[in-house]
């Protein structure tokens, strides 16, 4: 983008002069309805054009990585899901996978299927919520109302399987904690139908909405040459033509046994990103149906690790990754042979999207589009600061 008309940048900082009267500095957030979650944007505008933007994070910092060093391996499994509130299962899966890899613990086939099922369900729930947010950020609250209600149906399913609505704490090192409850198949199909109906409605009122099209087309373009220098991942990158999808590139759980295509866009603006995510929702529904069809219904779903109170894991380090709704999610776990992890580093995809990328992209956009642009990058603050 052409930045020549904006103030000069020295040492990463824009040299605007507030006293000149040409610029106004506005704080969006942390208490602001237009920011996703608890974070803040320090925006400098000239007219209604954004001249400089700085993301402030850390409002949700709980020191997870430090806390995990203080706790036994098993004790961390309830902790990790809190790192990403709207889509906790990816965290649960990755932590379990990393621990299993380091300790050499095998996971039963059936558990892998159940894991994949919950992972896809949580992707679906997360996308639904994002869709509501995306519509809401452009003033279309109706879709937002629908979306949250429909997502709640998926949460009801989670409640039935795992016993928790938000924090499922279902995927544990060694497998999963329980099998599907009786009558789940019918409930699931019922909910999927509701989701499909919602998507059908949303398609008409959102993607064929003149206002939505007008405001999102051409907004926040990510060019393919930005992908690697900015570390862009997931649908944000795929809408710009990248074909990377961890589920396909390095299949985990049972993704290698499922049939699906990587969804790729071309226009790489906010509209196209929305479109890509919308298709990924459809894909998720399809995958859930596939899983339910071929999933084994018998057999063990849990391999017990050694007594979890004394469980020590041999020294080593590993990096495991999975595809969340925002892109590649990763856990880097270092063990030193003791009963507590030496270091757990959680790489959330929002980390780069919300800070480095967004600060760059926001410059030049209309101030009113800022919330919409932010949602179109699909960022969840807690995974940035952890």
């Amino acid at each position, binding site marked *: 983008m052409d930045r020549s008309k904006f103030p000069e940048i020295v040492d990463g900082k824009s040299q605007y002069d507030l006293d000149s009267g040409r610029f106004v500095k506005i704080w969006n957030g942390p208490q602001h309805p237009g920011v996703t979650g608890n974070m803040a944007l320090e925006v400098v505008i000239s007219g209604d054009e954004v001249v400089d933007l700085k993301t402030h994070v*850390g409002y949700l910092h709980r020191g997870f990585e430090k806390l995990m060093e203080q706790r036994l391996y098993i004790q961390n499994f309830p902790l990790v899901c809190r790192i990403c509130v709207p889509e906790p299962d990816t965290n649960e899966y990755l932590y379990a996978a990393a621990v299993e890899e380091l300790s050499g613990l095998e996971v039963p086939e059936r558990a892998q299927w159940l894991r994949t099922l919950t992972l896809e369900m949580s992707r679906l729930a997360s996308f639904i919520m994002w869709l509501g947010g995306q519509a809401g950020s452009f003033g279309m609250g109706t879709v937002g109302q629908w979306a949250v209600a429909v997502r*709640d149906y998926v949460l009801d399913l989670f409640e039935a399987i795992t016993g928790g609505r938000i924090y499922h704490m279902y995927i544990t090192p060694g497998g999963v904690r329980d099998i599907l409850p009786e009558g789940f198949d019918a409930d699931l199909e019922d909910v999927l139908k509701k989701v499909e109906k919602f998507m059908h409605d949303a398609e008409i009122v959102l993607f064929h909405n003149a206002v939505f099209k007008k405001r999102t087309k051409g907004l926040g373009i990510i060019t393919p040459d930005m992908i690697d220098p900015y570390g862009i991942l997931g649908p944000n990158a795929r809408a710009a033509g990248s074909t990377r999808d961890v589920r396909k590139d390095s299949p985990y759980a049972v993704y290698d046994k499922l049939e699906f295509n990587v969804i790729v866009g071309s226009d790489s603006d906010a509209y196209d990103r929305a479109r890509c995510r919308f298709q990924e929702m459809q894909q998720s529904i399809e995958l859930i149906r596939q899983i339910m069809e071929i999933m084994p219904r018998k057999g063990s779903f849990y391999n017990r690790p050694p007594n979890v109170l004394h469980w020590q894991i041999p020294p080593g380090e590993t990096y495991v990754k999975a595809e969340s709704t925002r892109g590649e999610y990763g856990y880097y776990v270092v063990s030193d042979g003791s009963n507590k992890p030496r270091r757990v580093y959680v790489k959330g995809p929002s980390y780069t999207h919300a800070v480095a990328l967004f600060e760059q992209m926001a410059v030049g956009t209309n101030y009113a589009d800022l919330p919409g642009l932010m949602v179109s990058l699909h960022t969840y603050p807690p995974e940035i600061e952890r």
Partner: protein
Amino acid sequence: MKSTENKIIHPLENAGVPEDQRHLYCDASPRPYPALNKYVERFLNWARANSLWILGYGTGCGAIELRPLLTSRFDISQYGMNPRPTPRQSSVFIIGGYLSVKTLKRVIRSYEQMQNPKFVVGLGSCTVNGGMYWDSYNTVNRLDYYLPVDVYVAGCMPRPEAIIAGFEKLKSTIMAGQAEGANEYAERFDWYKSNQKKIIKDWDMPDYNW
């Protein structure tokens, strides 16, 4: 509301803001509001209880369950509540669980900017005794050290239904004239302030953000 003795209110120092800007800020502590005539008060409490407007600030995980609560599935408006985007229009502050020190600073600011009557609802274990972040270096353990809390809701996270139950409890507390958090904050202002300042090391805002 209960009556309080008239105290001599000393002006606030506002040492956190630059000297040349101090005159811009309020230097008065908050003032408790004594109860009025019994019947007037009863009427006012009824009115207060039935028009609770929630400040839309998701301070922690709890915010995730506010969305279903505020939208069509659980539809909080059927209980006479409504989200507002600014503290000036709100009367209920929902603390969604843990508070990091950085957020606490903003929460105090928002809370102090809210107009009376105002109430605080603490969601989840974290507000009671630190919850699962009990040994974290960045989250407070006891919310009541920093803000007066009127109702706590147990859970992690509390479900929307539990939050509604919390609001019902809040309403009955208000009706009974016992939701005196704002007055307590005014009465024990120095205590709250010193607790807040103890953990917010870079206090660069006025002492009372009115």
